[in-house]
Every structure is written in structure tokens, then in C-alpha cells.
């Protein structure tokens, strides 16, 4: 089995397992599966201008300056057309309600009124988006969603080339050393209970202290509050008393096989709901943790 089929089969199996334990998340999982599968395939297939790892300033990185602040990770010359052509059908398959708008967007891209490279060339992307929205009758949120889906394979591809630099950077901050995003989900291993944060934008995992809040770095070894589902001790959400944020955390995650923390997080969407009802904010928006 080539690596792509392997990853794809593993993803399908992971989603199957999550559905077994949390059937109520079926709609979310089935909506995002095509996008995640497509992202995995694209990240392997697309050819992007590689960032030379030696160009990263390691001391600035150790000082807390993520890669994205040292060099752009999304370039105008990236193969956006190829990505969009593959991503749009995947989104439509997952989100049939967006079918019409996405087809309009596809047409706009085909006839050149919408060139994603303009967005990534512009210092400030907002005017470009406004221009696009005016040119074709599509909701801003649909464009956002397309961009969000299109960026994932590029970020994933670039993050993999920087993996060695990232994992040896001694990074001890709560936000992602690669793309600067805050974590959407964390896992705590079972045998040696280290905490690993996961960035759902670029897919990077990094180890982080269990007594600090990733968002506001508050130290709280006296009391680290969290919630868990009775009978499902693995499903937890750690909260920070000072910045009032929560972080979905798979406690005592299994260590026998690789995991996709995003899929596991989708299976715990009920915890997102409950935390938000209690007035806590997620540390970041990961597309599947904001409901209305």
C-alpha cells in the first residue's frame, strides 16, 4: 500500500472508531471526511516551492517567534487552481448546502475573475475578498470556508519539510511554532502522561507543560480545572480560570497506534457545546467547534 492509501485507510478507520463510540457526531464527521481525505491526498501530490529549513532563525524560534513570522507559508505561486479544483467537489460532497455557491466560485475561478494568488499576494486580504464577493453573488462565509479548506494541504506540505527544525526547537509556547495558531485539541499520553498540543491548521504537534495555560501562559499547579464525561474519562476539556478558555483534551490517549486529533476532537463536539454554554471560549476556531 502506498503511503497515500495507507493514510487514507487509517483516516477512514479512525473515523469509523470514533463513530462507534460517539455516533451523535456522525453528521460532522461525514461532512468533514471528504475534505480531510482530499487534504491528505493533496498534501502528498501538490508541488510547492519548498522553504529551506536552514533559512529559519533558530534562536528567534527558541525565543517564541513562529516560522510564519519569519517567512510566509502561503505563497501566491502555490498551485491554488489545482487545489481548488480538487477541494470544491470534496466540500460539496460534505456540505451539499454550499453546492450552488461553490459552483459559482468555481466558475469565477475558471474565468479568472477570482485569482487566489491575488489574495495571498496582498498585504491585507480584506479588500480582495470584498472585491470577489461583489463580483460574484456569494456569501463571504463561503469564500472563507473555501480558503480555509484550500490552505490546509499547502500548510501541511510545508510543515512536513520543516518537521526536523520544529521538533528540535525547544519550543515551549502555547501557540503553534509553525503557523502561530493556538491549539484546537490536546492529547495526554497514558504511560508517560505528557501533554501534546495539536494545531488543526497546519497539523503540527508539540509537547507542552501540563501546568500552564497554552493561551495566557498562567501557571496553575495548585489547581488545573477540567471537565470530563462520566464513564468516558478520556473525553475532557481543560479550562483556564484566568483567560476563561477551554481546550478539548483526549486524556490518556491510546499509544498503540497513530491518531488524528482533529477526528477525535470532532467526536467530542458535545463537549464544545457544553463548554460554550458554560461561557468558555475555545482557544481557536477549528471549523468544527463553532456551531452557530
Amino acid at each position, binding site marked *: 500500500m502506498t503511503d497515500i492509501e495507507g493514510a487514507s485507510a487509517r483516516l477512514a478507520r479512525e473515523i469509523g472508531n470514533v463513530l462507534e463510540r460517539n455516533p451523535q457526531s456522525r453528521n460532522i464527521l461525514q461532512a468533514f471526511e471528504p475534505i480531510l481525505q482530499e487534504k491528505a491526498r493533496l498534501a502528498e501530490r501538490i508541488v510547492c516551492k519548498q522553504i529551506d529549513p536552514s533559512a529559519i532563525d533558530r534562536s528567534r524560534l527558541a525565543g517564541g517567534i513562529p516560522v510564519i513570522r519569519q517567512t510566509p507559508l502561503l505563497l501566491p505561486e502555490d498551485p491554488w487552481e489545482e487545489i481548488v479544483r480538487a477541494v470544491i467537489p470534496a466540500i460539496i460532497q460534505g456540505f451539499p448546502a454550499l453546492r450552488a455557491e461553490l459552483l459559482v466560485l468555481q466558475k469565477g475561478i475558471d474565468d479568472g475573475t477570482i485569482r487566489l494568488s491575488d489574495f495571498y499576494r496582498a498585504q491585507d486580504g480584506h479588500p480582495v475578498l470584498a472585491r470577489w464577493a461583489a463580483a460574484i453573488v456569494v456569501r463571504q462565509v463561503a469564500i472563507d470556508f473555501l480558503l480555509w479548506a484550500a490552505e490546509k494541504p499547502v500548510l501541511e506540505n510545508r510543515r512536513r519539510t520543516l518537521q526536523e527544525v520544529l521538533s528540535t526547537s525547544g519550543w515551549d509556547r502555547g501557540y503553534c511554532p509553525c503557523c502561530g495558531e493556538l491549539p484546537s485539541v490536546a492529547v495526554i499520553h497514558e504511560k508517560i502522561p505528557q501533554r501534546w498540543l495539536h494545531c488543526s491548521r497546519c497539523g503540527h504537534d508539540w509537547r507542552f507543560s501540563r501546568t500552564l495555560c497554552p493561551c495566557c501562559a498562567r501557571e496553575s*499547579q495548585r489547581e488545573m480545572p477540567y471537565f470530563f464525561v462520566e464513564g468516558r474519562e478520556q473525553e475532557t476539556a481543560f479550562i483556564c480560570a484566568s483567560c476563561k478558555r477551554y481546550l478539548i483534551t483526549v486524556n490518556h490517549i491510546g499509544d498503540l497506534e497513530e491518531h488524528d486529533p482533529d477526528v477525535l476532537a470532532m467526536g467530542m463536539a458535545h463537549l464544545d457545546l457544553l463548554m460554550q454554554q458554560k461561557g468558555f471560549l475555545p482557544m481557536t476556531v477549528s471549523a468544527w467547534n463553532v456551531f452557530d
Partner: protein
Amino acid sequence: MTNHYIDLKNSDCILIMGSNAAEHHPIAFKWILRAKERGAKIIHVDPRYTRTSARCDYHVPLRSGTDIAFLGGMIHYILTENKFFKEYVVNYTNASFIVDSGFHFKDGLFSGYDAKKRKYNKETWVFEKEGSGIPKRDMTLSHPRTVFQLMKRHYSRYTPDKVSGITGVSKENLLKVYAEYGATGAPDKAGTECYALGWTHHTTGSQIIRTMSMIQLLLGNMGIAGGGVNALRGEPNVQGSTDHCILYGNLPGYLKMPTASLDTLEKYLHKCTPETKDPQSANYYQHYPKFFVSLLKSFWGEKATPENGFGYHWLPKMDDGVAYSLMHLFDKMYEGKIKGLFAVGTDPAVSAPNTAKVRKALEKLDWLVGENIFDNETHSFWKGPGVDTKSVKTEVFLLPASASMEKEGSQSNSGRWVQWKYKAAEADGDAIPVGEITIRIMAEIQKLYAKEGGPNAEAIVNLKWDYTDRQGRYDALKVAKQINGYFLKDTVIEDKGTKTEFKKGQLVPTFGMLHADGATSSGNWIMSGSFGANGENKMAKRGKEDPTGLGLYPNWSFCWPVNRRIIYNRASCDMNGKPYNPKRKLLEWTGDKWVGDVPDGPWPPQADKAKGKYPFIMKADGLGALFGPGMAEGPFPEHYEPLEGPLAKNPLSGQLINPAIELFKSDLDKVANADARFPYVCTTYSCTEHWCSGALTRWQLWLLEMQPELYVEIGEKLAKEKGIQNGERIKVSSIRGEVPCVAMVTKRFQPFTIEGKTVHQVGLPFNYGWLFPKDGGDSTNFLTPTVGDANTFCPEYKAFMVNVTKL
């Protein structure tokens, strides 16, 4: 420990002797195995083959009580084979000092011995001094009365043949260990030693440890990463309880308890404050008065004034030359002289020596206050086996205490890391922390004395005792700050030209800033600095930085003194401050300051004749003590037989047992040396499934299932001789008592050939007591003698004589 647990990974050769690390310090053993993965050699020397031996490179059995002979032989080897690190020895130890001509050693005794008092007059154990008062030195180490030559002559008697005859270790094994460990004398090699109760439980315990310190000095292993002498202690906060000196002879911070003849503060301070004429010796204990006065201020606050000697007279005074240790305590209790006992988190009815005498003594108490998380044989002594309960008139209280995870506070591990821990859960029922119990009882006593008065009532009524929070509950943080110490008035501290101002009531950031005039208070000077001047609790720090890569973790918790992770670390550099082993750089002088671990003293390296200091700053003359006049039984460790051993004569000299130990004379303190009725050497130990007296682990059924009852481990040859089957219930007896148990016939005890004769050795764990589980066996210490080390009175559990008979 001079070093600490993680530092074991830096070692090239680890001698585990007097310890069973794999069983009793498994996570420390993990670091030992990390060293082994890097190619280090791990040697286990122990009378018995244990689970530690199974994972070491090899195991060398030796007869219990002969460690000094074994180590003396190693000194002999190091000196004759020229393995010592010459530059280190000449410059950093007192090897070059010239000893007074009156000093001599003949047939087992040093000069100045008073047989009646069993004590030495040490006036000849001194160094010849120059006119200026600085000790004379022969840097060529050739003068016959240099410490080096005296030491060489002393240990010339410890030839491999002689040592083999005493220890029962084959010459081949002796030379194998000596060569392997002796190789760490090279500047780029580090050797370390791990010991525990296997070394302290002897009448010569302190001298065994001193012999190893001398070896480490000779090999240049003291003060370097992967070196030092490391005690793997048994209790979670034994380092903290020792630092705060729940010890008869000391006050918190290892300050000396005053004796009756020092009837004024001045006399006491004069006696306890060492002096030196050598400008290059930092002699840090010259600041002793600052530590002592600050301690008195922490007790009695404003009531302690210069006029009343800061309350010096309120302190009790020991009689000169009299000791009040655990064995003396039970001796007096047995005589009916002690009426009340506080027994907090302890089980002496199982763990103290000579259990028969201890339990008889307890019956004579008027009252006993126990504070613990489980009941044990001490708190319930009055319903023990063979006790006529009705006739025991003792009034007993057993107060339920919170366990360690049910209260906030600090614990020191034996690597001197003082770690703050938080309260996870409320204790169940009426249990409260021992701190709270102590506060409430003393507050109540203060009220009684305030109302009714009594002898030396000021000491009680004036005591500062406000350590509760707003709800009136025990406040650990308040006590910790009082221990750290405060400025009692606005103070300006001048240091290298910079002036810093501190306000009254501000925390003292380091003991260097303590005052002898009452301007500061500190409950324990070595803990001063556990708080920053800004109130930061350094014991709770969790910094993961390790800039040296040696595993020092300077920002993880507070390490006394002043966060120095490896003591005597300036000795890891040459006289110009350049590290002897650049690959394992602990410290380096960069021209104006030290870089690396917190230096053992900020002064420039020794080569700077004007401002430089010697590395051993706590010693009066600043140098490592190969010649140690402070010891009760002699400046050079000498092998003496245990109080109760197999030999009638000491093969090395005419002096059979340690001449300076105190002998107890009660009717229950019988001794049977070289006695045909008790022909086998016996030792005691613990097992990995239980912990100390078992007072916590015996109540846990999954652990008890694996080690359910008392057993004695006997060699196969001895068992065959006695017709004893494996698993058979038998009896082990000494002249003091007998202990029924199960026979465990094993290959892990081999007979020794001592002075040509076969001597068998057996051993028992001491983790059992009659209270629980029923018929699990009672205290092994029915067998052990009331005798202890000459300096510390630590009992000799590890070597006595028994017989083994069928029931």
C-alpha cells in the same frame, strides 16, 4: 547527597555499596542504568545477592560489618598503585599538613585514649602551625608526619590478604573492584558511590562513609558531576526532618545544641564559631553567630533582645558529654524516668533496636500521644503480645493525621531539592495535618502557662506562635516564610559596591544577608533563600532549563544551600578555575565570575593569592579532610569488629570493637560476641514490596499478598547442615530475643571464609509487626543490640550474631 539523583547519569563507574538501589530507590536506579547505557560500570558490593545485583555488572559478597576493611584496602591500592589525582590531593585536601609529633597510632588505638571514659583526648590530633597560625604544609608530601605519609602508613596494614581474611571477599574480587573504581582517579573520569542504611547501621557507620569520602578526595571525585558520595535515604522527607533537626544534639540548620558549661551566649558562640588565620580559607562557619541569633529571633521575636542574649537562657542545655538519642531515650524510659511521649508518624516498637526493651519501656509511660495516618505497633503497644493490658496504666491518644497528598507544604528529597507540594484532597473524617495538631496543642499549653505560670514559663509564653490563616487553620506558607527569615528592620546591604535596600518585614533572599545583632530572623539558615525578596516561593518553581546539560535543572524547586546543586563544585576546576574535565563542565571561572552551577563560594579560584579561596568553604581550613580530627574514634577510619561479631580477636589490631562507642548497661542489654550459642552473622534489611517498618504498606493487600510474612534468608550449605527445609517455619534467636519466621533457603547467601574459618551469614527484613497482618510475624528487632555509632548513635542493625534452629 553531595550530588543528586539525576547526576548519577554522568558517572563512569558507580559503586553501590550499603544500598539495594533497584529495590528501594527504583527511579534512582533508572538513572544508574542510564549511566550503564553510556558504558559506565555498575558494581554491587553487599553481603547478599539482591535484585540490584541481578542488574549490575557484577556482585561482590562481603561479611556484614567489614566495610572499612574493604575500603581501607582500596585506599591502600590507590596509594600503592599511584592511582590518586595528585594535583587535586595536594591542592584541595589537607594531605600536605604536618601532624603534631605527639600523635601516634599503636595496636588499634590513637594517641589520647581514656579507656575508662571510652573517649579520646584529642589534643595531639592537631597540625603544626607556622608563626602566623596557618598550618605548616609540605607540598611534596614527603615529610614523614604529613597527613599523606601517616595515611599511607596507616593503610599499609590493609593488604589484600589481610582484607580478604577479614571481609571474606576473594583477593581476585578485591583487586577487580579496586582496579575498576581506582581508574576514576583520571581527571576525565567520574566515580560515585551510592549508600543507604547498609552503611549507617554500624558502630563504625560514620567512619565507613568518611572512608569513602577520603577515597573520593584521593581520586578527585568530590565536587564533580557524576562524583561525590550519595546517600539514597529511605523516607520522603528524612532530608527535611534532618535539616530542621528533630535531633537531640542540633537546632534547625545543623546548629549545635548548647551544653550546660556554655552558660552565656558569648561563650556558646565563641565555642561554635571556628577561626582560621589562612586568608585563603573562606571558613564560612565564621558567620555562625548570624545563623544562631536569627534562629532565636525566629523563636521569640521581639521578646528576644540583646539584653537577654536573645533568649539564650530559655533554651534547654544538655549536660556536657551526655547524649539524649533514641537509644538513650528508651534507656531512660525503661528506667521509668520519662513520663510522656509524642510519637508522630513513627513506629519504634518495630523499628527501634532491642524491641523487648522498647516495648517494656513504653509500658512505663504515664501518657503517649500518637499522631499518624494508620495505627501501628507503637500506638497499640498496650494490647501487644505478652502484654497484661489491664496492668498497663498508660493513657494513650491516637490522633488521625492527613496524608502527604492531603496537605500543602514542602518536602526535601535527599538530593537537597526542597519541593513544594499542593493539597489535592481533604483528609477523611476528623484527620488534620500534624502541623495543625502541633499548633493546637502548643497554643493550649501557652494558655495554661499564661494562666498558671510554671518553671521557665517565659520560654513558652514568649514563643511566637501565630502560624494560622484567617480561618484559624494551619498555614504552611506562613511557617515556610518564617523558616526562610525576615528583615526585622529597614536594612541596607552593601555587596561589591552595590547597595540594596530592604524594608522591615521583607523576606531575606539569602543567608548571606542574615545579621548577628537581631536585625534579621530565620527559622533555618540553610533554607534562607527558599523565598525571593519579592515573596516568590522558589520551592514551587518548575523551570525545565538545564543549560549545563548535566541535569542540574537550576530552576526546578529550590535546592539548599543557595540553590547549589553539587556541593564543593569549585573542586571540579584547577587552581585557575579551568574545569579538569571540559567534556563534563560543571563550573568555570571566566575571569570575573563563575559560570555553570551556583559556585561553592563566589570568590575567585585559589590561584588568585589575594582574593582566591580554597574549595571546601565549610571547613575551617578550607580543604578536604583526609585527616579528620572531628571524629570520635580517630582521624583515620580503622576497622573494628561489630559489637557482636564472629571473631574473638580483631585480625588488624588488639582493639576488638570501636573504642569510642557507648555501651548500654540495662538488664536487657546483653551481648554475645564470638559465642558458640550464636555462631551466625545476621543482618536486617527491607524488601521492595514493603517500606520501612511496613506501617504503611502492610495495610495494602496487593503489596501484602506478594510479601505476606517474615522470612529469614539462609544459605543452602547452612540449611543442609541444620536440616532446615525451604519454606519450613523456624526460629532465629540472639541473646536478646527470638523471632519465629519462614526459612528461605537460597544461593544468594554464600558462606564466608573469615581468617581461615567458615562463617555463615543470614538476613531478615524488618517490615513486619504483630498488629497487622495477624500471624505475619513480629518485629525482627527483638534480635538487635542497643548499640550505635560513636558519632551519631545510629544503631548497629546490620551486624550481630544469631542462631537458627527448627521450632
